[in-house]
């Protein structure tokens, strides 16, 4: 498992990419993976964090996800602390695909 060992501060979330489709996912309280960070499990409890890490390892070994790691979450905003991780949560601020979708809709 290529997991970054948890060594962050405050609440943690576990993230990865789905091996097959490549898209970003976050671990949910049901210990499943969601594309939506709003559904992510955020925890400071070391037992839960340990469990999250174990699930990450299990699903990595099962070839479901790849590149598992913990991220720090800002208590106040509930969003990832790091700028880069906020981008992973929100998706690109611009994608030509958005524009193409809008044109299709108009047509």
């Amino acid at each position, binding site marked *: 498992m290529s997991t970054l060992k948890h060594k962050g501060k405050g609440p943690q979330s576990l993230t990865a990419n789905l091996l097959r489709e490549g898209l970003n996912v976050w671990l949910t309280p049901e210990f499943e993976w969601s594309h939506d960070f709003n559904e992510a499990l955020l925890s400071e409890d070391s037992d839960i964090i340990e469990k999250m890490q174990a699930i990450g390892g299990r699903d990595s070994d099962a070839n479901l996800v790849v590149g598992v790691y913990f991220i720090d979450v800002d208590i106040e905003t509930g969003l990832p602390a790091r700028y880069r991780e906020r981008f992973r949560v929100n998706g690109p601020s611009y994608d030509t*695909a958005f524009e193409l979708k809008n044109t299709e809709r108009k047509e």
Partner: protein
Amino acid sequence: MYRYDEFDHDIVQSRVKQFRGQVERRLSGAISENEFKPLRLMNGLYLQLHAYMLRVAVPYGTLNAKQMRQLAMIADKYDRGYGHITTRQNIQFNWPELMDVPDILQDLADVEMHAFQTSGNCIRNVTSDPYAGATDEEIEDPRPTAELLRQWSTMHPEFTYLPRKFKIAVTASKTDRAVIRAHDIGLEIVRNEKGEIGYHVIVGGGLGRTPIIGVTLRAFLPRAELLPFLEATMRVYNRSGRRDNKYKARIKILVQETGIETFSKQVEAEYARLVPSEIAVTEAEVKRITDYFKGPDFEIINDGDVAYQAALETDKDFAFWVDNNVAAHKVSGYAIANISLKVSGRAPGDIASGQMRAIADLADAYSFGEIRTTHQQNLILPHVKKSDLPALFQGLKSENLAGGNIGLITDIICCPGMDFCALATARSIPLSQAITERFDDPVRQRAIGDMQIKISGCINACGHHHVGHIGILGLEKAGVEFYQIKIGGDASEDAAIGDVTGPGFSYDETVDAIERLVDYYIGIKCEGERFIDSYRRLGMTPFKEVLYGG
């Protein structure tokens, strides 16, 4: 025009089969991610910020209409309906799924394309002058040399695990449209006093976190010695390049730390040990490759087409487009047509599948089916009859591709930045869009004249910001992006690395800062002076004052 020979065909087909097996083994767990990662990277497949990204090689930027249609098909079938032209003349897709990649590679192989050497520490896809075979400036078409290098470097067993990636560019014109001085090796095809054709070999250039302009390794290398001499150079690098520190592993650092004189001696000593005839190709082989690039059957036409002249006089938009986007062709009555992919509101270099198909049709109708990609993230139809330019312009207009901004302030090079790239520190695309919007007025753009703005979303400098007349580097501090501005860089034959102006600007301040620089330049420029010329004349001080106050 070049076509793959039977060797390429077999290699590409077997590589697709091999990768299909590798993906199957990865999905079944027979190989781990650590084992799989280098294999996928060797096939151009990255895992980026949100998804996989597949980078497809466009050797020396040459494409045909059939290949372009296939790229459009791939964009629609497996991705999100568009592709992105990179600063190494390749095309990348931002959203493929791993499961589909073997099929994509097969679809590419069907039109003699692949994704080799678009990643990894190997000799990367060789780039060249996008005007190759069309411009009257060139000594000869540089693509046979680029092709020779492609064949030599493809899966070269000795150079597949270099200390770091290795980039080569080739030109044959004095005007440098391939940034050869910012490459690990830049080759300029030149003629010596005896009139013989050979190579000016430049080494140790590069951008990234340590930008360096390359220096001359050999002022004139006889043509027949190219491969043995490069092999000797690569061996010295492979042996002595630093493998202990990724940031110091490029050949530019080796050349800088060793000194060009010592480095050159090492190369010559290595060269003396080689048996050139074991590496060099025969004249017959060079001729065989060169024949592939013979060029289309141009008609004999005179330059004064009446309808074309009339269109220039009556259609202001067309005349403006011709003035900026059309370059002289080596054959009378023909022209090189640049197609701008710098469309207001769009990411620089992005092209929708419908536009790809339209360009393929236009290439078939007006340019012998030939298309080029440029490191400036634009496209070119290299062989258009002047009499066809009005029809081409109309065709481009209906696809929103008739922007007449080539070489102007809105023709911005911009890397994907934080919107897509896993390594980014800040966004670059929205900033390029904001600058484009600010300078949208074509009259104003023309008044500013030749201006190269280049934006990178991190220190890796894929957006070439070090060699922008104005270069912008996106950084981040405490969760907030900010932008460092450089001025005085130059990607041309007068290559120069820009100078940092001072502290960075917030996202919101950056466009205003650029506008202050531009307005100042407009106020002080002498007749015929470009922004870069004014900077060279006046130095940093007045520009700094304009940016930061007195």
